[in-house]
């Protein structure tokens, strides 16, 4: 039995009045399921509106140049009865289903429990802060707390904030005290929950920025106090005339002054457009993460896609490390003109020597890895080319040469990429480097690296050779100017002038900041590095 079906514009995201740039079918055409009927173009992309039915096009309701929105009729298709029955099971009504059916991401952590039992309350996402001081503990064991009651007050150099309870009940244990340093996820308290099944907000309430005067320890004034302290965000001068008219209460204005936020730039989300503390916090966060909420050139945005429309998904929050490293990688990628120089190093002798020494080293508790040799060769090469060990000054106006060599190495951990740093690597021989590598790697795996063990690097090595690959383009760990990528070594036929010799060749990929390093210098660097790696006696020399 035939029937005429109206084909409508499906959910096309938050767009309406989208222009029709092409009509793909005409009356009388036969279309199959998912055949394109018309092409729409938004300012982000063009897309085809597929037929949700198979059959014959009775009429097309739109013309090129029309603007249409979700739900508008595109065409009428006459279906054949058997086609309908056949196609019904495979028809995907989802293509026109409203977006509400999309699977809502589940965030287990942020759903406070309402049952009775002992719950732990942890430090929520407090932005990119680590090791934040606890300056006040507002509760003690035995206290009754309600949801949102402040448990502790944290203070960063930017602001102080209360951490609210996500559970109502009686505090049975407290795990922090004043002066402690905590980070996201740290357990604050255990609470014997007394809540009944009353509904609670689905998401953990975000920490509230204290509206009152931050209670930061005063900096002892020095004789020459700087004229104005640097504002927290990269805002320039405050528009005082606009500031004085902003719809913000005195406490918000005070907070804005502390944070160095020009209220003119902040959009208020409170009643009647009032700027509230959350607006300030969001603005500062956006600024810190390089967002474009404020002024300045913003990057073109990646289109937002509702993945759940296309199949099942799960959403897992990024780890803290990923949240920190992501913006840093992006900052380097955006700010540095990257060039990568590739080369091969003959490590046949080095590898033979390493294997020969391996067991004796193991007796001394040292695991002699190729990376230790590579790091020794890098140090030797940096000594010849100290420019690779330098940094540009913050204003880009001068070059800073560092008379120390701290070599970072990228370590893959469960939580993400970390870069432990071997300090004074130039004062270590291969054995000492191997030992330091082993120790720091173990700490990295266990998430126990101290901040100073991840700071101060002057050059970084990223070795993926244990896994594979022939070459890659690492991202410089700015403000360093160079990073050495190492891929998997392989036996290759090398012409020695008379015949091919089987040699173990190690691929090297040196990315560098082209503002500091010329191409010629880079290739001299990799050439010498390859020579150092080939000269195993040189690598094994004792450190003077």
């Amino acid at each position, binding site marked *: 039995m035939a029937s005429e079906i109206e084909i409508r514009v499906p959910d096309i995201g938050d767009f309406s009045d989208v222009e029709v740039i092409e009509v793909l079918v005409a009356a009388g055409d036969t279309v199959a399921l998912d055949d394109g009927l018309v092409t729409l173009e938004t300012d982000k992309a063009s897309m085809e509106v597929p037929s949700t039915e198979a059959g014959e096009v009775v009429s097309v309701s739109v013309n090129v140049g029309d603007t249409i929105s979700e739900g508008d009729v595109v065409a009428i298709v006459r279906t054949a009865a058997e086609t309908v029955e056949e196609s019904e099971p495979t028809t995907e009504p989802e293509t026109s289903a409203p977006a509400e059916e999309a699977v809502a991401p589940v965030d287990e952590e942020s759903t406070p429990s309402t049952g009775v039992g002992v719950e732990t309350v942890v430090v929520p996402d407090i932005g990119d802060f680590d090791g934040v001081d606890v300056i006040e503990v507002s509760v003690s064991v035995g206290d009754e707390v309600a949801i949102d009651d402040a448990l502790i007050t944290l203070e960063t150099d930017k602001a102080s904030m209360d951490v609210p309870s996500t559970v109502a009940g009686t505090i049975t244990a407290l795990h922090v005290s004043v002066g402690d340093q905590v980070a996201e996820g740290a357990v604050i308290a255990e609470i014997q929950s007394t809540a009944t099944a009353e509904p609670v907000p689905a998401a953990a309430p975000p920490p509230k920025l204290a509206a009152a005067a931050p209670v930061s320890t005063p900096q002892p*004034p*020095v004789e020459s106090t700087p004229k104005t302290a640097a504002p927290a965000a990269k805002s320039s001068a405050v528009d005082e005339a606009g500031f004085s008219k902003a719809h913000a209460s005195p406490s918000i204005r005070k907070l804005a002054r502390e944070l160095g936020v020009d209220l003119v730039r902040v959009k208020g989300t409170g009643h009647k457009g009032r700027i509230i503390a959350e607006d300030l916090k969001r603005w500062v966060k956006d600024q810190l993460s390089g967002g474009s909420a404020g002024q300045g050139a913003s990057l073109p945005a990646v289109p937002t896609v509702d993945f759940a429309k296309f199949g099942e998904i799960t959403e897992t929050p990024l780890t803290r490390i990923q949240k920190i490293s992501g913006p840093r990688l992006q900052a380097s990628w955006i700010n540095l003109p990257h060039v990568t120089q590739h080369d091969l190093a003959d490590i046949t002798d080095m590898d033979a020597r390493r294997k020969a020494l391996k067991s004796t080293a193991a007796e001394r508790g040292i695991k002699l890895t190729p990376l230790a040799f590579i790091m020794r060769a890098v140090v030797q090469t940096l000594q010849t080319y100290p420019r690779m060990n330098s940094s540009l000054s913050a204003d880009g106006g001068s070059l800073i040469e560092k008379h120390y060599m701290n070599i970072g190495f990228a370590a893959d951990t469960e939580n993400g990429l970390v870069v432990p740093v071997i300090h004074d690597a130039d004062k270590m021989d291969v054995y000492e480097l191997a030992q330091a590598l082993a120790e720091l790697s173990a700490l990295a795996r266990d998430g126990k690296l101290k901040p100073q063990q991840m700071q101060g690097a002057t050059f970084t090595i990223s070795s993926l050779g244990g896994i594979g690959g022939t070459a890659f383009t690492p991202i410089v760990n700015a403000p360093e100017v160079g990073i050495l990528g190492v891929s998997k070594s392989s036996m290759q036929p090398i012409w020695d002038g008379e015949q091919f010799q089987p040699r173990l060749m190690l691929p090297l990929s040196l990315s560098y900041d082209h503002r500091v390093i010329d191409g010629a210098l880079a290739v001299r660097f990799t050439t010498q590095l390859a020579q150092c790696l080939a000269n195993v006696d040189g690598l094994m020399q004792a450190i003077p």
Partner: protein
Amino acid sequence: MADTETTFDLAVLGSGPGGYTAAFRAADLGLNVALIERWPSLGGVCLNVGCIPSKALLHAAKVIDEAEEMSAHGISFGTPSIETDKLNHWKQSVVNRLTGGLTQLAKQRKVTVIQGTGKFIDAHNLSVVDESQTETNVSFKQCVIAAGSEPVILPGLPDDPRIVDSTGALEIDPMPDSLLIVGGGIIGLELGSVYAALGSKVTVVELTDQLMPGADPDLVRPLTKRFKSRFADILLGTKVTGMTSESDGIRVSFEGKADIDSALFDRVLVAVGRRPNGAAIAADAAGVHIDERGFVPVDKRMRTNVDHIFAIGDIVGQPMLAHKATHEAKVAAEVAAGHKSVFDARVIPSVAYTDPEIAWVGLTELDAKRDGIAYEKGQFPWAASGRSLAMARDEGFTKVLFDPTDGRVLGGGIVGPNAGDLIAEVAFAVEMGADASDIGLTIHPHPTLSETVAMAAEAFEGTLTDLYMPKRRA
């Protein structure tokens, strides 16, 4: 010259409301603070010879006036007997209680109080000379100048104890039969109210055509009307051209709209304004700029041109009000302690504690008309306030000025008993960016005078039911 043992993190020059607030706030923020005061008691002009003793006397005047007014409504006390010694003593006990409290608060905060007159030696040292001429050198890392102001003395006046300034007028013994107040501003009129209530024949002479110049004329009108029945004379648009000492009084000659050329007064109060003490502190030794009028220019963080030296209160400019000084003091102390505070207050209320009180804050109609600022007014007459009528008063009114585009409160003025207490709500509304409906929809307690603020807002909105008003809006 003796040196203090330590270099203080902060030296505060002057212990008035601004100075002691700066000192205490800085101490609370962890700074080691010295508070330098030339008089034996802390508190400055406000506590010792200003706001506080004058309010004690105004309270006495109000008791007399109200008792007298009730005689028309069935309660008579007869003529009051006034013991000026006791009155002075009570007034002084109020002052002592507050200043003594300050000394305690300084001690609890470990603020070092140094008595003597401070002058800068250089940008990090003050010389403090006490009554016995002992000189102490106070070294500081940062400094807050809070040296205040003093009454303006008219040039060419005879040196006669019967010619007094506001400080002298606060000592009310012996009561003069007649008193001339030169200057119809807040200070002169407050003291004039006291003397009139205590039985003096008070005459006011004011150069401009209005008492309390700067306030909206409609606010001043009820006050002028009341004064007309209580004061001997109010001479507006009139200039004092000379004063001579005579055995039975001070002869004062006038010129202007008043139809008298001269008159004899037992006492003359000169209340023509206050001038900053900028010239008295040797600021140039520290490199601090003082302008030609004696004010110290400062930025929004209360810094002078010398980065580590702040100035607050009367010495930085008008309005010379204690509540402005305390607010500035907190900004200065916080900035000195490394905070990023800024003087961000949008409005500073003004209050005359006369009877009726006059209070205003933010935009005035005078300012709006002068600067061409668009506004709409909501006004509520206290003749329709049950509470005001129950106080036997009906001359007051409350007006609130609104932005015609979004209804936000721009300012307001109130005249009537307790207007000074009521104006705080309007100030709060301006700071919060509240609009007419925010105020009108806030339930105010009945029957109070505070209702009049809400009703003024309702009058603007057209939702007021306590009066019949032509329809304004839906």
